[in-house]
């Protein structure tokens, strides 16, 4: 099923468009066309139609979340760097279990080491994570991890499992976490949750989104809490590690790249580790889990590419770090 930008749209254009259009609250620059009424849709079975609607909601939730992240952190608009990131990410994804899905990669202007997989294929990597990578294989493993989150619909399924009340509470928690100023808190208006039937009807009318029992804005707000505060279940993170490593290996990259990426982070960046472990299992455990996987895959027999040379050339042109 195709939801992404036209194939003629370059990856960096898609990513740049993503940044800009999300900031402006619009739709993708390269996908600004509203979903067209597809004659094929008419021929879908009720089950297929339901799945189709579900994917549309997933895209909306993810786009909303990506917009918030880009709005909060800002984006790196270096076209060449974005092109490279999208090239590597799309390449790894094409060796994943969901190659037909469209993934769009963008860079957050922040020096922490993190990456975010929003539903619908919006994957945002911090500049700090790019800097931390030593070679292309490490980057590919990180992107593979996020691609697995999207492909397996970890976040989206978790949101769907949440009850409306939980979603509202999560959104409230997110708000309280970001506002610790009682005077400003007084001025804080409610998070737009569309919890009422009237609101939901209006939102549905205005957005044309039929929905699948999930309020897009509420889900996005709760998803943000999950992304930045609570994190996904530990098991889902391990699964993403495993799948991501597999995708990278299938794509021809060096198998131990994810382990070296995590190990170096653990050794040198206590503060960054703490931030990452807020939403992910302990790095040590992740390394051990990946190590077990590599044993079962007999990874020592696999000769993969590290992509050192190419990555070094790209790294030379990285924007200068900003104080965070």
């Amino acid at each position: 099923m195709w939801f992404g930008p036209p194939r003629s749209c370059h990856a960096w254009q898609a990513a740049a468009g993503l940044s800009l259009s999300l900031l402006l609250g619009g739709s993708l620059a390269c996908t600004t066309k509203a979903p067209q009424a597809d004659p094929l849709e008419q021929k879908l079975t009720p089950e297929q139609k339901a799945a189709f609607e579900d994917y549309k909601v997933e895209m909306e939730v993810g786009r909303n979340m990506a917009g918030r992240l880009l709005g909060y952190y800002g984006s790196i608009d270096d076209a060449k760097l974005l092109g490279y990131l999208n090239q590597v990410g799309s390449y790894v994804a094409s060796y994943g279990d969901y190659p037909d899905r469209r993934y769009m990669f963008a860079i957050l202007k922040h020096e922490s080491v993190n990456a975010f997989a929003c539903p619908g294929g919006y994957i945002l990597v911090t500049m700090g994570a790019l800097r931390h990578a030593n070679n292309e294989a490490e980057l590919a493993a990180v992107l593979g991890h996020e691609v697995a989150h999207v492909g397996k619909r970890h976040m989206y399924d978790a949101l769907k499992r949440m009850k409306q009340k939980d979603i509202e509470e999560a959104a409230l928690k997110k708000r309280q976490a970001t506002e610790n100023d009682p005077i400003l808190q007084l001025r804080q208006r409610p998070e737009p949750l569309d919890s009422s039937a009237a609101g939901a009807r209006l939102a549905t009318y205005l957005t044309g989104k039929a929905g699948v029992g999930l309020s897009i804005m509420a889900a996005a707000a709760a998803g943000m809490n999950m992304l930045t505060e609570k994190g996904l279940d530990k098991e889902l993170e391990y699964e993403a590690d495993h799948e991501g490593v597999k995708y990278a290996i299938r794509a021809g990259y060096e198998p131990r790249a994810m382990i070296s990426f995590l190990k170096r982070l653990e050794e040198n960046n206590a503060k960054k580790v703490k931030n990452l472990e807020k939403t992910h299992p302990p790095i040590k455990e992740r390394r051990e889990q990946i190590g077990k996987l590599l044993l079962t895959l007999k990874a020592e027999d696999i000769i993969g590419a590290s992509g050192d040379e190419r990555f070094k050339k790209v790294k030379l042109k990285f924007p200068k770090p900003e104080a965070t």
Partner: protein
Amino acid sequence: MRDRFLLRGFAAGMSLAFITVPALADQFHYSNVLVGTRAVGMGGAFGGIADDASGIYYNPGGLAFALSNDIQGSANAFYGKNTVYKKALGDTDFTEQSSGSLTPFFGGLQKLDRYVDGLVAAFGVYYTDGDLKDQDTPIDSFQVGNTTIDRYHRTSNARASTYFAGAGVGYRVLNNLGIGFGLSYFNADELLQEFQYAKQEVMLPLTDGTSVEGWRILASNLRQHLAVYGVQPTLGIQVALPAGFTAGLTVKKTIVATQSLETQGDTVVTKATDAQNKAAVTSGSSSTISNPIQSTVTKQDSKSTNPVGDLPLEARLGMAWFASSTMVWSLDISYYDAVTNADVSTDPNKVRAAYAKEAVTNYATGMEWYMTPSLPLRFGLFTNNDARPKVKKGTSNVAAGQTCTQSLDYYKKYCAQPDHIDYYGGSLFIAWVQPNSQISAGITVQTGTGKAQKLGDDLVQSVSSRQYSFAFSATHNM
């Protein structure tokens, strides 16, 4: 521009004449246009809140309490105004109408915590008044006193705007105290072009004591252009009080750099007989009209370099109560001081400057209520009082107690006091809020009553006026 040059000059009864007086644009009401996204819905009661880009207008001190960067714009998709002067033409009402569209506010706000903790900057472009009139009013055969007017025709075109463009900063000097400063460029520009025509059947007296049927025709052309430029510094302070209350004080003063009012006009009075009488008059022995068509042209060209004088100092006291996360109430009291040094020569009687202003106090209160987290309802009530003096019969200058003069060629006393209309208004807006943005739509209505002297004599007419606007606005939080 609300009060408009009108057909002053239909002298009731004996003669037919136009009186040209300066076009009085509506610098006499200070709440004609409400600016801002939330503020417009709350009746303009925003001095105690002012935490978005419109804070540069309401209270720069409120900027310091902004929650997020935002950019916002609003547009009056359509506005209309209808003012009825009761029985201005004998038993006939006269109606002034105008309509159009306007963009009252566009602005943005940027928090600068990364440079200085608690510092916020904002910019804004906004209109506090605007009008567009294209009115054609032909009226046939009506009675004024004992006189029948065969035809009156007025074509009036006017455009006017009062515009500000500026920037401001707010700084949170204490946890509960914000101060702010703004500086805006100011321009008021008003252009009126008006043609008036009137025809009255009369008996033209001859020297032998007889008379002959004829017409008296008046035609008047007028063009007036008022241009005022200046800057407006604004100081604001806002304090957060216990129990969710806030209070704010804003003081602003427009400093006029240049101003001018240019008037070019001419009035033609023509007396004519019809063809038959013309033949009789020219061939008969009783001919006493050497030329059956007599025209008199009066030019009215003038220029004033001080038409408006100073502009008033404004002090706004704002209060708000953040009762809960879903309910905010606000109250503003705005005071505008008097202007006494406007050019008196802009008045036909030369007794009261056309743009002189009395002190005015306006009140506004508003409420924002989130019916659901995504659907806030905003409503407000406000006054929009007139800075011109109340119209009083028998005087040409109420403040100075001067009686009407008879210096002009009318059989009745010529008073020509400006209109006085006090408005009460209400606003009702609903918004749809998304996580990073909101759009809102609603209506603002003002209704006013007052008195006028549209004929320039010592008759006084009742006036009722209503103005309304449908507005849209959008805010994007960044």
